[in-house]
């Protein structure tokens, strides 16, 4: 059920992490395979959905090639035959964020998770999510201010 209803979100987040939709698709499928195999290990210590999101995030991070640069998305990211979008001034700034900040942003915007779910997915305190997202916003805001006209 979760797989069917949230699949587009999983794939979108994994694409953001890996930078390549084919790689992302593989990562999502592998993550769910891990979840199915390890379902008995789920002890109900947190929300099931967060457990699954964690698996997807980890699989996507593992699948990411060392040479990956988020600023240069693979053409495979195009959808429905559209051309990949050109990088904007924010693209390198987001790529330059610390990984936890970037993941928190992705989980917030691509997965549409609330702070509690992000905290459970990243295994951090609720307050840490708030602080992390705030730091990301501050960093981006500062960087944007420094961009010359």
């Amino acid at each position: 059920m979760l797989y069917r209803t949230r699949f587009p979100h999983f794939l979108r987040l994994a694409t953001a992490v890996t930078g390549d939709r084919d790689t992302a698709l593989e990562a999502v499928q592998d993550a769910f395979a891990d979840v199915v195999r390890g379902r008995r290990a789920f002890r109900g210590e947190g929300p099931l959905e967060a457990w699954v999101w964690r698996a997807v995030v980890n699989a996507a991070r593992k699948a990411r090639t060392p040479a990956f640069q988020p600023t240069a998305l693979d053409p495979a990211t195009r959808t429905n035959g559209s051309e990949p979008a050109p990088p904007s001034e924010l693209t390198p700034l987001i790529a330059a964020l610390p990984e936890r900040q970037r993941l928190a942003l992705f989980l917030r915007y691509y997965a549409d998770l609330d702070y509690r779910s992000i905290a459970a997915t990243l295994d951090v305190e609720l307050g840490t999510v708030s602080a992390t997202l705030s730091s990301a916003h501050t960093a981006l805001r500062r960087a944007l201010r420094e961009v010359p006209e």
Partner: protein
Amino acid sequence: MIDVEPLIREELERRVPPTEPDLADWGSVLRRAGEPGRRRRLRSGAVALLIVAALALAASPLGGAIVRGVGGFSSWLVGEPGKPAAETEQQRFEQAGERSWADFPERPALRELIHAEVGGATYTLYGFRSGNAFCLRLVVLGIRGAGPQLGCLPRHELEQSRDLAIPLKANVGFGHVGRLPRTIADPPTVSRALASFGFAADSARRIELVSDDGTSPALLASGAFLHVLDRPSRGTWIRSALARDESRRAHVVPILLATQEQPSGSLPLSAKGPARVERQVRGGTIGWFTQREPRGAPLEGSPRLPPRLGACCLLGAFARVIQPDARDFLRMLVAESDLGRQPEGEEICRYLITRGGVGGGCAPAKQLFSRGPLALSWGFSGVGQQFWIVSGLASDEVARVEVFLGTGEQRPAPLRDNVVIVRVQAAKFPARIVAYDARGRVIGIETIGAQRGDGARPVGAWRVVLRAQANPGPLALLHVARSSVGGRCLQLELVDHSASRRCYPASSRRPLELSQQSTRRAAFVYGRAAADVASVELRYRDGDVETVKPVRGLLLHAVPSRHARDGHRLTIAVARDAEGNEVTRQRLGSQPAP
């Protein structure tokens, strides 16, 4: 300052546009997980056909249940039990629904399940599903004043229950034999018929109901059962049920007898689930409420709610309607009180909105979570309800809430914007309502209906001590019984409507303890007063005052219909001694702090 959030959203939307769900391939996941064996075992004959059908259905909300497993109630989860109800009955049902306070999430299409003629009356059981609510409606003709009876349970109950039958209502009385009690000495009402009904599992072959007079079979058809005990003798109640499957082995189906605190004739249960709080959380808050964030829906314009509901319920300007399960009709109104922000803090009001009405009160925000992160209430609306509604607020630390039944079964409790509303099968009490934080640690436990230890319960027989007739509206009977911890318990019975109960310990030092019980048409005030309270002034918002004298320390009063309107409702009760001195006052509509 640059508002960076829209820029981030725009950038992320642009870089990774939404993807299509058609890339989803569950079969590939299973193969990667090394789970092909399960498919091979199932790939034969009719079973394989079922799998194909199930996969096709899985794309629909209805079929989603199959992916999770439908348990024993597939005729409801994926089928269409019974036959379509007559158009006239459908219209009657919809017209009745227009007067309710809550809309069903989807237009319910009534299905006729069972029809029977018993003792000169006809009983027709209908059923329907709407979103996550699965409901049965019993319509009785031939007994004066016998209104339809509606009961609902949540989808997850049908998905997860392994019982052969799930009673929805039991011991629902229709009509009465002889005259109604008029004095304390009169015996309680005896119904002309007692009806019990519920859902039946696919494999149920026979369901028998056990009463004080013996065992008799229920009608079993179309995924439901109906039992009518015609002209029961005084003191005869349905106590439990036995269900049999193909093996003819009997399984006990617990039934809550509404006139007692504990389920009777069923299972000796004890509280299950986590018993220890792993992280102490006290003094929590509700951030969105404090910040006045517009969560949920506004009160004004919410479907079905009277636009000036706020005037009746001591509400201030900030009021939001929260629906924890968007596919159910239960909602909660969370609001500031009309006291506004006081130097000593503010009050949070919470009112549960069911189809039949609105009930709740206000409490100081500071005290709401002073004992833990859950502030819950529980109760039922309507006679013979087997599923009680547990509802309330959870502080910000709560990430999820689970219900552990006395049978060891576990159920999820919908939680959204700090509001929890869940229906719990009362015959499986005691139930532990457990709150977890984001890291899965237990941070709060509320136990409901424990046999011993935490809370008083009535023991021995109930006696009718006071009666009051609303005009218009139902007859109210105030019953009293001894309390298991000393003192006494009161039960207000609104005949053919609902019942509510409170126990007052002998050690209680409060001079006045009143409660309100309302239906759509009438309201009653009832409770206890200390021996030195000679009279109680009931003050209304429009300035009107009524004086009521307690009888043997008890009070029951039907609020006049002119005070059942916004701007005219009851606000405060003032207790006075024989000399007219004020003893205490109680703000009505506010509930005591936990």
